[in-house]
């Protein structure tokens, strides 16, 4: 389907090149020339995200500065029968921001202000282009932070976090983005503005806020977000446990949870990960370890100390060769630096990598990691495991060189098998990166036709004509009004 769309787009674009594009002219009239880019370079930059999906084709790229400008773009796109794709920092890993069929792309990065910090309600109203880490920096003076901390937090935006319902290491104890958003101002595909949710405890009606979060740009564009702010914990203890193998590290995870603790974070890195991280970031991980767990507990002094002691005991009982407790903030920062730089480190290894994302029950971690290793070996691909073990969220990184003949196909085949073993273990397709195009055609491995029909009903209630980020999330038989038939009705519609 994707190929068809881009071929159609190419024809339309080719036809247009000869005369000024009326769509671009309308956008320029509404936003000003500085906020609309239609040249090939700008469109190329907006055609991809951080995923390996490379077949996106962007139409004009707009940089709105206000909710009103977003509304104007939506109305103009509707008038020209064009789809719209919102875009944050483009760090998404499932192709969510990769435009299909040359739609109007709305890059939200210019709307990056903190609009209001409301300490009485412990929320901040922010614009969607604000970078995740910048938000926590801006409220740090109040002893508060924004709990969701994706490993990409130096670059990714709050709008992207909302659209993907993003997680991060500390979401184990604190919950993912949905738990930290009170309200969202959204521009719908017809240009109408509506506030979903609210600061009150129980806003009336359906939880449209909750339905919007995680909708990957298919339900509308977030133009302002009321994020909840979390008090910084007074005590934090960070530990690094080194194991002879990944299985004993994985067993520790279940044992810690079964002991009645919910640590702030439990991250697992396997032997290969330790090797590349040490090479790159010198975080002080034992180089001979078969796997390490980075575990953090927090709370008040007494409780944090009790939890740390329990974690050390459980880790040792499960075969840890050593457990180091960070003595000070500098050591803690160093241990986390290793984890947070893992993906950068992998980039040093091979020119390409495919960062996978599935979830399995914690009790199946050891078994599934082993199966993932076996799958990678069979396909001759190297795999590195760095993941949010506490909530069973696997991130096998398949590192490869796409210039080698047949390698890309092998990686794709291995990726599919990883999905199969995760689902067979009672898992889920994605824990935090979303479905996008990457896993769209796997949705029916997890959901029945009736399940997908209901997901589509939700989407159509927001966007009856499917003009928001079309071709994503739902496999085409379940996608609304089927894009192919719309295209046939009007050649320019998806072009």
């Amino acid at each position, binding site marked *: 389907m994707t190929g068809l769309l881009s071929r159609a787009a190419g024809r339309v674009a080719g036809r247009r090149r000869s005369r000024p594009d009326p769509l671009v002219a309308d956008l320029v009239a509404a936003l000003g020339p500085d906020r609309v880019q239609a040249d090939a370079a700008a469109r190329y930059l907006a055609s991809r995200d951080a995923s390996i999906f490379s077949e996106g084709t962007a139409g004009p790229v707009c940089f709105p500065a206000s909710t009103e400008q977003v509304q104007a773009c939506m109305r103009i796109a509707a008038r020209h029968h064009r789809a719209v794709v919102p875009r944050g920092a483009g760090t998404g890993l499932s*192709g969510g921001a990769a435009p299909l069929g040359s739609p109007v792309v709305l890059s939200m990065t210019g709307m990056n202000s903190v609009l209001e910090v409301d300490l009485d309600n412990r929320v901040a109203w922010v614009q969607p282009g604000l970078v995740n880490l910048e938000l926590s920096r801006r409220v740090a003076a109040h002893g508060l932070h924004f709990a969701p901390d994706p490993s990409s937090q130096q670059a990714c935006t709050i709008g992207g976090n909302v659209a993907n319902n993003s997680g991060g290491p500390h979401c184990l104890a604190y919950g993912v983005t949905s738990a930290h958003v009170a309200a969202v101002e959204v521009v719908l595909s017809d240009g109408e503005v509506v506030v979903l949710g609210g600061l009150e405890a129980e806003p009336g009606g359906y939880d449209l806020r909750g339905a919007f979060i995680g909708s990957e740009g298919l339900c509308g564009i977030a133009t302002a977000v009321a994020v909840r702010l979390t008090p910084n914990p007074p005590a934090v203890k960070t530990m690094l446990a080194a194991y002879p193998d990944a299985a004993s590290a994985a067993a520790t995870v279940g044992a810690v949870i079964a002991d009645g603790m919910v640590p702030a974070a439990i991250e697992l890195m396997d032997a290969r990960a330790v090797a590349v991280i040490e090479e790159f970031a010198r975080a002080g991980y034992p180089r001979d370890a078969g796997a390490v767990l980075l575990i953090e507990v927090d709370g008040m002094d007494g409780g944090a100390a009790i939890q740390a002691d329990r974690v050390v005991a459980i880790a040792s009982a499960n075969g840890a060769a050593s457990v180091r407790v960070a003595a000070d903030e500098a050591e803690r920062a160093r241990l986390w630096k290793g984890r947070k730089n893992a993906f950068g480190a992998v980039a040093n290894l091979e020119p390409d990598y495919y960062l996978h994302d599935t979830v399995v029950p914690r009790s199946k971690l050891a078994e599934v990691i082993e199966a993932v290793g076996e799958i990678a070996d069979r396909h001759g691909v190297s795999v590195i495991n760095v993941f949010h073990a506490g909530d069973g969220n696997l991130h096998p990184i398949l590192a490869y060189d796409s210039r080698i003949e047949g390698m890309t196909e092998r990686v794709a085949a291995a990726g599919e098998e990883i999905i199969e073993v995760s689902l067979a273990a*009672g898992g889920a397709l994605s824990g935090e990166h979303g479905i996008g195009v990457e896993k769209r055609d796997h949705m029916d491995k997890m959901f029945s036709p009736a399940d997908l029909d209901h997901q589509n009903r939700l989407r159509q209630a927001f966007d009856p004509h499917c003009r928001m980020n079309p071709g994503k999330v739902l496999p085409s038989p379940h996608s609304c009004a089927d894009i192919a038939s719309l295209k046939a009705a009007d050649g320019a519609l998806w072009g």
Partner: protein
Amino acid sequence: MELTAPRAAPGAGPGAAAAVDEALAEFAAEVGPSGPVCVRGGGTRWCQGGPGDPEARVVAAPAGVIDFEPAEMTVRVRAGTTVADLHQTLAAAGQRTALPVRPSGTVGGALAVGESSPARLGLGPVRDALLQARYVDAEGRVVTAGAPTVKNVSGFDLCKLLVGSLGTIGLIGEALLRTRPIPQTERWVRAAGADPKSVLGQSRTAASILWDGSAVWVLASGYEVDVEADLGELAGLGDFEPADPPELPPHRWSCSPASAASFGPERLGGDGRFVAEIGVGVVHADRPQPPRQMSPGAARLNDQIKARFDPTGRLNPGRRP
């Protein structure tokens, strides 16, 4: 790179094919594809969302705990189970859920109504407890929302739509809930004249802070050492003594946390009684909250959701979240 795979037969995957158990299948058959139906839980919150249609056929969701995995911190339970029974099962492994316990209140009822426990500050809202739901839709089909795991972003979050929907989207038959460890210590204390906002700013263990305009109650919750230390600090803000929690007046108001913390009897006609949940925004009062206005845009979206999921309006007719 081409990511599209040869398509598996629809619903052939392990997740999609996961067995619908007999009790759920029977519930779906009972609901059937036509005619107005309403689901009855414990009947504890029938006052919410308007009177139901007396003509509607009454159905009841099946009961029983299906599977409790303490090391996963999840429990799969049929929606007709009472929250009290569920919590009794979970307590054996030192766990519980965020669902409020009401005499004879069921899991399905708690999810459909969506009201959180007065300890929401510590337990989190009900909506964050639902990981997966199996419900019977307007066509009588069993539909699955969410995933069998503690973390999931596979597709649209239908679970959020179900919580608080008063059974107007689908009738929940089975739920997978997130569980939480029961803390080592939980203790209610009370101080007359304490300032609720200062208590919220100070306390690190409060799972609930209640305020009736004069006294503050705190549910200190956590490790014994932490509760002791916290109560030591709170002593600077008032004379906190062990006490029972206050009786909650019958009507529920929804406010912002800031406005709950500055609530006053003038909002109740001068002499009303209230108990505000500080840091949350729910206020329990002796008279109902005046109707709240929904913005036209939000109202339109609500109507569209209902129309798409239940075009003939057969599910819990008359009720509106």
